[in-house]
């Protein structure tokens, strides 16, 4: 399977764009100790660095402004969104910064310089909580039904407690 079969259409939060270059940054955080007058040094590993992605994208065509507005809106929405890159997979990322560049001599072309950071908030917004009030209402109705049903069965109410 050639790498061409792996290519996917890039998009963020479902809004498509075209890609000129994309870069992923990773690594590990750490602290390096260098001791005065010593031949030794010490390196301390402080865990994995958060994944960042920088994307140089562009939108082209007669409706490039509409496409660019849609992308800008998607980038500005709260929370993380699904970022799909052509060959570097997909992940839930939050747009850290973006620059929308339109130049005079490249009409009909909108460039986006975007940087993303990996977001732990899955999806786009915090998960909606259960509607406990509705389920409480529901169970109240069930209880009233059961009480009514039981009241309509005189045979089970004979004798003493």
């Amino acid at each position, binding site marked *: 399977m050639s790498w061409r079969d792996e290519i996917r259409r890039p998009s963020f939060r479902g809004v498509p764009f075209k890609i000129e270059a994309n870069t992923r940054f990773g690594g590990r955080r750490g602290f390096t100790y260098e001791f005065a007058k010593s031949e030794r040094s010490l390196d301390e590993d402080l865990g994995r660095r958060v994944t960042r992605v920088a994307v140089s994208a562009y939108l082209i065509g007669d409706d490039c402004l509409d496409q660019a507005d849609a992308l800008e809106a998607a980038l500005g929405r709260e929370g993380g969104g699904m970022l799909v890159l052509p060959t570097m997979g997909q992940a839930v990322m939050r747009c850290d910064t973006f620059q929308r560049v339109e130049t005079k001599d490249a009409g009909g072309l909108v460039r986006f310089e975007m940087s993303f950071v990996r977001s732990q908030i899955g999806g786009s917004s915090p998960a909606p909580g259960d509607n406990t009030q509705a389920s409480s209402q529901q169970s109240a109705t069930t209880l009233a039904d059961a009480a009514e049903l039981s009241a309509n069965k005189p045979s089970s109410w004979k004798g003493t*407690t």
Partner: protein
Amino acid sequence: MTFSQRRRAIAALKAVVTALQAAGGPGTGQASADLRRLCGALSAEAGDAIQAGEFGTPLRACFEAAVTAGATLDGMDRVRTVAQAVSDDDLSVQWIAQTAARLALAMTVRILATTTFTSRQDIEAAQVRVNAAFASAEDFAAGQFDNEVWRALTSAHAAVVRDLTARARPLPRIVPYAFGTRMPLLTLANRLFGDAGRADELLAENRDTVHPLFMPAAGRALSA
């Protein structure tokens, strides 16, 4: 059913219906009128309805009407207390009392689900009341081997506790405050919250205020 059982059952039903009518309040709207009509009809035909074993449906209609007419948690609690205060060990009398108590619990759950709480203490107080209210009804249903009602009771109990706990979490607590001197209400609100617009809230928490210009030097306020 003997005459004596019937007489005691009618008394229990009438007591419940009277409490229910009081719980609905002396409202003037259509909902209150409906409540009074339903309660009156059931009260008038209490004997026949009990003898025929057909009081369940009209009694439930009365309870639903009371909630629509704006019955409060306190009012519904009083109805439940009246129903549970029937200490007759004859099952045909408990039939009315327990049905009323179960319906009152269902309506309590419904009222709690629509109540908006402002502080965690309010919710905790409601939770304590609900727990106490459910306990004896659950015991009775379990003792009677009434599986369906027992299950409905426990699941309603669980649902309301879960709802109250979930809604208590984001609410502020009520905490005491104390200053060296008495302050006017607006100054106090500004001092505590940085927002004099929340003065009314502060007044609602401190019922013993004599005059809003001289708020008690020590009182209670929401923590956020």
